[in-house]
């Protein structure tokens, strides 16, 4: 017997999911997370799930893990001290940061500029120059470069990034500097821009390379430690890490390119949501992951999440493929306030965070948050997370009342309803970003809602977008672990091409992409996935000649095999441009970046199967509660989610409770428990 193990480490809970590789059967376990050393919680969870399933640790063949270690290093500013080597004349590339100041007119007055990820005193120059055509304009001065590296050694840098001008066109100087660094800075990991991101644009490439170095030591330590612990505990299985693009990467590969794992966490959620929704028969999805401080949304077509070329973490945006997740800076902890001057109701971007948290948490928070509004309206029961958190309804009320007073509203409920409306509107803005603004009609998609707060707001967002059904998967942590366990190994190669499409013939196009596929494929074989099981997809960043931004067009081997590949590519680009911007131009097309992604097979996991119910939902009903909705109090049924059986229909208004999430079903809507364990919310027939 062999087993796969999906592991998701969240802020509060660590979820593990054990999958029988033959039958696809699953077992789940949940334990408290251990933030100081996440591996303790992970091992505890493995013990628990093995005990439950009666499985020996020695039978676990694969451990699949989504981790936030890289993300947290950036968010908390606790990465390595990175040294950066640039071409002479470009030492301040991160200091100048493309000269960009966010905000509107006068925004510069109130913008605190973040410090560069590699400090300027740890940035040195190499006398050398490569031309934009890849030729050597000035040979590398090795002695001067060694001297510069010695300065970095004296400064105590813990990681080294090398990003030279035009290194995307030729990498020989970067490679040579890596060799010099091995002698001058022994033991320090080196990230080369020509490896991390061989694409044009020096700032973005330097920043991405530095970010790679910045998180590398922590990721390496964490992954190595976890691997060692697993081995010591008798788990023979290889550790794989979930990448930001939703693929899996062997632990070794993850350590060398940690910048590809910055969104490992959210990618797990989206991947899990896709899998769960597929069990309910839906493949066209908008995912909606609402947490405490922010909300992530993504669009899924044909069961595949759209992949973007940018990864955003906090203030940092790097060029690394990632599930195209858009983040709205609002969540359950967002604070509502009323500026005195305009008396408008604003929600966020300030957040109460975990400490002190919403007023209802009773940890000293006094400012009204979205969670407090949900409590005042009766949407959130006063005990959460299986009794670990008790909510203080009176404190929430007092906090929300301050908004009512400032706006002259008649009651705390009216103010709370306003806060919910505003935050839902902010969420709607995010959902529109991935749908309407990309040329997709949200009514053609189902909305998958998860995260701590997602299921509370999901029904309302279904109403605003017309995306039905609203799918609420089983508990959020399990969803991410499912994502980890159900995805496939993946690797990717990319490079900047800069050729006009009409100057490329089909054979040249084949050669460019074939080479990339081969190198990615080779690495995947190195990770233990035999070549016969590989699936290759290609993507080309194209633009009209003269445009400044590219659109990514994805395609498969069929197009490459065709005699008119370049022309087909141009037509696909035109269609995409038309969809997004409602026009095309008579200009030629330029191929900017080429990319090949190679994936292994998708593992088989059996869907969760709820017992069929008998059509009577009363067994799951635990009582009733008063909630405030559409300007009035109504009675809502309270239901225990774990007691719902397949086919049970919960009529709204209702509140469905499980350990770590709560689902609100609005009047005029019903929630159906389907066999896969999801709740499907739809308008009742009478309203639809």
């Amino acid at each position, binding site marked *: 017997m062999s087993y796969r193990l999906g592991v998701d480490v969240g802020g509060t809970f660590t979820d593990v999911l054990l999958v029988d590789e033959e039958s696809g059967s699953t077992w789940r376990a949940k334990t408290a997370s251990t933030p100081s050393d996440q591996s303790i919680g992970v091992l505890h969870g493995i013990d628990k799930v093995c005990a439950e399933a009666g499985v020996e640790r020695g039978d676990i063949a694969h451990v699949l893990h989504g981790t936030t270690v890289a993300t947290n290093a950036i968010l908390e500013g606790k990465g390595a001290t990175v040294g950066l080597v640039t071409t002479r004349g470009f030492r301040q590339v991160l200091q100048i940061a493309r000269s960009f100041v966010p905000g509107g007119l006068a925004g*510069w007055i109130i913008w605190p500029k973040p410090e560069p990820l590699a400090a300027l005193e740890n940035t040195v120059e190499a006398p050398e120059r490569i031309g934009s055509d890849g030729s050597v304009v000035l040979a590398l001065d090795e002695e001067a470069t060694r001297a510069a590296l010695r300065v970095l050694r004296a400064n105590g840098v813990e990681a080294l990034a090398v990003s030279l001008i035009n290194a995307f066109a030729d990498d020989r100087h970067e490679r040579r500097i890596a060799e010099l660094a091995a002698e001058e800075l022994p033991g320090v990991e080196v990230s080369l821009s020509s490896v991390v991101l061989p694409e044009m644009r020096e700032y973005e490439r330097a920043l991405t390379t530095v970010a790679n170095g910045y998180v590398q030591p922590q990721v390496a330590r964490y992954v190595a430690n976890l691997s060692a612990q697993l081995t010591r505990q008798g788990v023979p299985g290889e550790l794989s890490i979930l990448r930001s693009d939703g693929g899996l990467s062997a632990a070794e590969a993850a350590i060398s390119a940690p910048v590809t794992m910055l969104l490992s966490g959210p990618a797990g959620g989206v991947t899990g949501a896709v899998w769960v929704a597929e069990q309910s028969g839906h493949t066209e999805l908008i995912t909606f992951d609402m947490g405490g401080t922010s909300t992530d949304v993504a669009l899924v077509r044909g069961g595949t999440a759209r992949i973007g070329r940018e990864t955003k973490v906090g203030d940092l945006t790097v060029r690394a493929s990632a599930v195209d997740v858009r983040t709205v800076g609002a969540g359950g902890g967002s604070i509502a306030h009323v500026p005195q001057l305009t008396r408008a109701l604003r929600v966020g971007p300030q957040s109460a965070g975990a400490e002190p948290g919403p007023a209802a948490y009773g940890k000293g928070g006094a400012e009204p948050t979205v969670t407090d509004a949900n409590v005042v309206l009766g949407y959130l029961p006063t005990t959460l997370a299986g009794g670990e958190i008790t909510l203080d309804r009176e404190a929430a009320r007092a906090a929300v009342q301050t908004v009512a007073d400032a706006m002259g509203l008649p009651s705390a409920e009216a103010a709370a309803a306003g806060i919910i409306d505003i935050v839902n509107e902010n969420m709607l803005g995010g959902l529109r970003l991935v749908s309407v603004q990309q040329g997709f009609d949200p009514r053609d998609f189902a909305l998958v809602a998860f995260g701590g707060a997602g299921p509370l707001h999901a029904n309302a967002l279904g109403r605003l977008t017309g995306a039905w059904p609203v799918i609420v998967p089983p508990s959020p942590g399990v969803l991410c672990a499912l994502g980890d366990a159900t995805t496939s190994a993946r690797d990717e190669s990319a490079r900047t091409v800069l050729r006009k499409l009409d100057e490329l013939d089909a054979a040249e196009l084949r050669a460019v992409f074939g080479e990339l596929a081969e190198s990615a494929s080779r690495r995947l074989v190195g990770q233990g996935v035999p070549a016969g099981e590989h699936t290759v997809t290609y993507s080309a960043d194209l633009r009209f000649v003269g445009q400044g931004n590219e659109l990514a067009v994805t395609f498969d081997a069929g197009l490459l095999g065709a005699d008119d590949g370049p022309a087909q590519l141009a037509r696909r680009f035109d269609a995409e441009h038309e969809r997004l911007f409602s026009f095309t131009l008579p200009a030629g097309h330029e191929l900017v970046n080429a990319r090949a992604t190679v994936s292994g097979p998708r593992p088989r996991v059996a869907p969760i199967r709820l017992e069929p119910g008998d059509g009577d939902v009363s067994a799951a009903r635990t009582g009733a509660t008063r909630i405030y909705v559409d300007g009035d109090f109504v009675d809502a049924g309270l239901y225990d989610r774990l007691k719902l059986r397949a086919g049970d229909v919960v009529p709204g208004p209702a509140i469905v409770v499980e350990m770590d999430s709560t689902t609100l079903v609005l009047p005029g809507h019903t929630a159906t428990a389907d066999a896969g364990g999801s709740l499907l919310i739809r308008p009742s027939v009478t309203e639809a």
Partner: protein
Amino acid sequence: MARIVETDTTEVPRVEVDPVTLDLVENGLRNARYEMDEVLFRTALSPGIREQHDEFPLIADPAGKMVVGQFGLSIPDFLAGFDGDIGEGDVLLTSDPYACGAAISHANDWLVVLPIFVAGRVVGWASMFGHMSDVGGKTPSSMPTDARTIYEEGVVIPPFKLYEAGRVNEDALRIILNQVRVPDWNRADLNGLVAACRTAARRVQEMCARFGVETYLSALDALLQRNHDAMKALLHLVFEEGRTLSFTDYICDDGVGFGPYELKLSLTRTGDKVHLDFTGSSPQAQGPINYYLNENLARMFFGIYMITVADPQILWNDGFYPLVDVTIPDGSYWKPKHPAALNARNHGIGRVFDLFGGLLGQTNPALLNAAGFSSSPHFMYSGNYSGGERKGEWFQLYSIGFGGIPGRPLGDGPDGHSLWPSFVNIPCEFLESYYPLRIEKWETIADTGGAGLHRGGNGVDVAYHFLEPGTIAIHDDRWLMYPWGVNGGAPGARGRKWIDRVDGSREILPSKCHDVPVRPGDVLHFVTWGGGGWGDPLLRDPELVGLEVRRGLVTAAGARRYGVVVDDAGTTDPAATEALRAQLRAGRPEELPVFDMGPGLDEILARCEEETGLPAPTRPVWA
């Protein structure tokens, strides 16, 4: 005066809008406005918009009042200047500042306006203008620094219907595009402007469908009223009744030998209203630097400084305009007479922000920043490839540079950053891939930021090594008059430009020039100004000064301006620092000046040639 053709002209009753719906409409408008930006950025071809985002969107109510946008423009003035019917599906275009009450201020800006219809009725307007990188005329990029009339500045399009009932006027478009050097750019950018406005129209129509036309229009009224009420309260809070505040700044020269131009702004509050008065400013310039300023735009700039700090999330609109009276004298720098040249008005737009900053900061220390707005420094390079695969092919580069952000109450001014929203520099690798040049250096220059408790940002030196023969053009300012410091902070350094010729000679260039020939191997240094300093430099933490020496942002010699004694490795000498600071304190007045503009004007002019290598300009006089 335009006649609006509506099939439904009944009055829309106004209804009560609950505060939450109001905020929902506000949010929807804000999203629509950012979507307009996105559509244009992604599709534009000309470098000015594509890479640098030189464009400004707007959504207005049926009367043409801006309900969201950031650079205001005056749809009422535009409509007043258009003689004809406007109906559903029409899209109007103009580039003539003199025909639209300066809704745009030079002929490079193409302004698109379209009515938004719902059920036969105008529910608003969508509008956007963008800077076309070339509109023809006598020099590439259409900004001749010696122009004396607008006729030298390329094609000037009077307001006309680019689309009538959804059908494009191909003939007119062909005539226009026949005047410009790279018609593909203009065509794509124009497409983008129209697509962006149509996107905005769609979003407004969706909101009307969701909330109802009555509620939507009532919400717009309430949003305008919200700005009005907020501003009224703010004016009383900030300005003393009857007290006149004044501030004067300068533009160094006009490109044809006159300068500096004095720009004066005064403000007085009487009752609920304030009066902005530009009287006392210099006469209109002979050269192309005139900034034809629309009164509503002056109100808008004023409002930005007032409200941004009070509620940064507020949606900008025209609602407070009735509270602000504006006087701009005819024939002045701000209101030149047709056909005065206008192309280089970017210095004036920049300076308007320094003027408002200096003026309003006198009452509100939280708003007093040092100076930094030189202009929007432009660099152009064009020619035909002389050999190789592309022999004979035309190349034309248009780019915008950046300097030091001023020292601010919040902290240091960032080095080499943009004072304009959403502007970014063009990457070196992009430039080298598409233009025959190589960049040898792109860095900020130590000590160019004014010393202060909060240092001014450093200016930037970009060294362009040319690979093909061609001509270059430069538009910049602050080469003569200093970016001033405040609250004890020192002025920043002035900008400089020179070419190191391939023959070894050095040629100093004026800050405004065009058609300067360059040869392969010549290297242009384009050095921008530094931001002024904020607060007493002697109070700056010596260790921070030491760190900045290690970072190469301040030199050991420059550290003495902070009274800090430090070696080249950035190690400070605390005892020597204390002594130097005591000595510097003893040698200066007890009370530091609020504004430090550097030496007096007479002294600056007397030393001009010696310090800058350029002859002093001649003072302009009113006729």
